[in-house]
Structures are given as structure tokens and as C-alpha cells.
């Protein structure tokens, strides 16, 4: 199933994520972006244009930067107004979740599959303790 992606943020986070996607996976062109509030321009029509572009036999995913923020509020409003069940909205977006969904081999996203991808892409405190055990797996276990 064809998927469409939009990233919407306060300022240039969306453009920054797009730049990272291009370097990591050559996928910058696979996302549309909205960098809100850089000018006084109303960005609502861009959200509407995206929701309108998602056809009945397609799925749309909109990533927003901050849960409860104004960008997220506008996105939720537009998606609900469009009455489309085939558009998902993800908030508190990070690079891991965007990459994971862009590269997903799944034909059809579900609430479950997206929730699983979000769990795998959590913000993480990196442990800086060196492991004391054997660092890599035993050869027998490897094969």
C-alpha cells in the first residue's frame, strides 16, 4: 500500500530530520515537511493539502514535534476534520521512529505495528558502564 509522510515542527526540526533521512537512507524526498512559525504565514493549508492528498487506498503518517503543542493541535484538528481513518498522527517525534516507519517493509500500518515501532525507538539514557562479561557471543551460539 502506498504511504505518504509529513513531518511538521516548530521551526526547522522538520527540515533537519529530512536532512538526516537523506544522509542515512537517501529518503529525504520521501517526506513532506512543514517548518512552522519561521514566517507569519498560516501553515494550516499545507496540512490540509497533505490530508487531502492521501487517497482511500493509501496510508498517511504525520509526525509532529511536541505532544500538545500548537503544531500537533492543528494537525489533529485537520485530520479529524478530514474524517480519514487512514492517517496516523505521531508526536514527540524522534529520528528513530521516522526512519523505522520510512524503512518498514509492512504493507499496511496498524495501531499495533506503529506502537511497536515507537517502543523500539524510545529516547534512551546510554549506559556508560563497560561490560565485565565476555563482550561478544560465543561462536557456537553465533552459528
Amino acid at each position, binding site marked *: 500500500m502506498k504511504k505518504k509522510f509529513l513531518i511538521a515542527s516548530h521551526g526547522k526540526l522538520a527540515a533537519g530530520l529530512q536532512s538526516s533521512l537523506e544522509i*542515512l*537512507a*537517501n529518503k529525504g524526498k520521501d517526506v513532506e515537511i512543514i517548518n512552522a512559525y519561521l514566517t507569519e504565514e498560516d501553515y494550516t493549508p499545507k496540512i490540509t493539502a497533505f490530508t487531502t492528498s492521501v487517497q482511500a487506498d493509501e496510508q498517511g503518517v504525520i509526525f509532529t514535534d511536541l505532544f500538545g503543542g500548537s503544531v500537533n493541535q492543528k494537525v489533529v484538528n485537520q485530520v479529524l476534520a478530514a474524517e480519514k481513518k487512514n492517517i496516523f498522527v505521531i508526536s514527540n517525534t524522534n529520528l528513530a521512529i521516522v*526512519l*523505522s516507519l520510512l*524503512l518498514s*517493509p509492512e504493507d499496511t500500518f496498524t495501531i499495533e505495528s506503529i506502537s511497536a515501532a515507537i517502543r*523500539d525507538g524510545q529516547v534512551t539514557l*546510554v549506559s556508560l558502564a*563497560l*561490560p565485565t562479561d565476555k*563482550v*561478544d*557471543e560465543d*561462536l557456537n*551460539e*553465533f*552459528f
Partner: protein
Amino acid sequence: MISQVRVDDRLIHGQVAVVWTKELNSPLLIVANDEAARNKIMQMTLKMAVPTGMKLLIRSVEDAIQIFNDPRGSNKRIFAIVNSVSDATKIAKNVQNIDSINVANAGRFDKSDPKQKTMLFHSVLLNPEELTAAQELAALPQIKAYNQVLPNNPRLDLKEALSKLLE
């Protein structure tokens, strides 16, 4: 068999961990690198980069060659990663059953004199020893060697790129 030997001066990183492991469908990852095999901090950071569901071994190039020739691996798809063309050439000379060698990213962090380096591909800079190793690699008849940073980039043939240098 080895589905790919990738030359990457960052070893395992975003392009490799997220993109290539999916593309190659190879859940067994071997980093063949002498420095990584003795450096605990490098081992820790490499392990962080490995996606869940994949197995990783970190070995010196010599030890890795033995593992690549282990009959238990003959029907498995192994993804091998080295950080220099020289190491890839050493592996190519000592291991059968290599599908291809991808000289993806090289030479940017090897601390050798930038003025001595030749740019073979966009992200492949070779110092004189590495350039010699690349020529040896391209001369091996059984080996398919090319540059392809990401799966949706075109494959650029190593031999052709080297012959263009001489023109």
C-alpha cells in the same frame, strides 16, 4: 556464505545498522577489525549500534577469516564489515564464497596525510597503501567489487573507477 563484505570507516552506524541489514537480510554480523577486537570501548559502542534480533561477533581480521571459512556458516548469510580496503583485500584473498565487496566509505578517519589521498568515489579517500590494496582487490577474478553507499544508490564498479584514475 558472506552476502557482502562492506568497507566502512565507521564500521557499524546508521546506514549499516538500519538500512543494509534489512536490505541484505543477513542477521549475522561480523566486524573484522584488529583495533575493535582489543578495544573494549569500541566493542561497547559497536554493540549499541546493532539492531535487535541480530547477532554480532567482533574479531581480528585473522580470526574473522577462520570464522568465514567455518563450514557451519556455509548455508548462512553473513554480513562482514571492515574499515579499510586492505582488510577487505586480505579477506577476499583468503575466503571463498563471498558474494561481493562493497567499498562504501573509506579513508576519512585514518589520520593519514590528506594530500596523499586519492578520491576514488564520493566518500572513498585512499592513501597510497589503500590504493594499492584496491588495485589488488580489483584484480582478483572471482570477486565482484563496487561502491554503493546506500541500497538505492547505483553500484559503481571498482575496476572501472580505478582505470578512470589512470586516464
